[in-house]
């Protein structure tokens, strides 16, 4: 049992879960008065409320890309796979998130 807790895969899981839970918690909080405080802080750094949304969304997308890459690389064991498989999966990730970010920013 302990061996599983110390397994690197479990560490990856913990990382993924932490990111998910924290983004969940933060966004829920953002729906309430924490939002105003965040907006004010953001404003002092020189950004409009609208830009806060963009920053959050870009961060969300990048986090999703990192999570997906972690699952591909470690859970799916692509790290130990032949080059063509590594290239294809990484290519998919880069192309997808590139397009997603591109269309998102273009639509703003």
């Amino acid at each position, binding site marked *: 049992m302990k061996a*599983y807790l110390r*397994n*690197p*895969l*479990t560490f*990856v*899981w913990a990382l*993924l*879960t932490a990111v*998910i*839970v924290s*983004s*969940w918690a933060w*966004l*829920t909080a953002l729906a309430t008065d924490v939002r105003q405080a965040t907006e004010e802080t953001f404003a002092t750094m020189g950004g409009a409320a609208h830009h806060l*949304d963009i920053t*959050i*969304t870009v961060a*969300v*997308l990048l*986090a*999703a890309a990192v*999570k*997906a890459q972690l*699952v*591909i690389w*470690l*859970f*799916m*064991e692509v790290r*130990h*796979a*032949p080059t063509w*498989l590594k290239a*294809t*999966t990484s290519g*998919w990730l880069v*192309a*997808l998130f590139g*397009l*997603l970010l591109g*269309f*998102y920013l*273009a*639509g*703003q």
Partner: protein
Amino acid sequence: MTEIAQEFSTGPGNTRNIDARRHVPGDPSMWFFVIGDLIIFGVYFVGYMYYRGQYRDMFLQGHAKLNLNIGAVNTVVLVTSSLFVALGTSAARAGKTADALRLFSIALACGAAFPLLKMFEYIPEITAGMTPGTNLFFMYYYVMTGMHLCHVLLGLVILCFVIRSLRGPAKPRISFVETGATYWHMVDIVWLVLFALLYLMR
């Protein structure tokens, strides 16, 4: 293909021999399917993002109406299930079939929670009047999550077959276990993107 069950020890001190380096987990044709499926979902994702740019307000309102809590719990459920599948796969490879059986069973139990939670999400939404026909956002939402749900159900069936193979009197085929695991991880990845696109975006 160097996919014959290799009895190398799966500790952190894994011998990095050439064979391990070039190992394609499971059946290569499953990878063909996985990558193709990722591309198909990718077309949906990009289309969604494009139309989101066209109908920003509609989509923003839609985000607000979704159940973020269930969405987040489902994400954790799938990621946890993936963990157990990954652990089970390396246990099976190391020959610890009993461990693998237990790990895959936990993975199956976790995974089975997903469709259940989805029902708790869909049914209130539908009775509240938010159907696929409501607007484009909800059409995308139901189509994408619906397609994903079908993949999850299929994945659960595949996991059952893997468990059966691990349980059976004959020695389990590692290639089959890996193939099933690969499919399941793909389902997880698609959901990670869906979670970000539907629930988290602002």
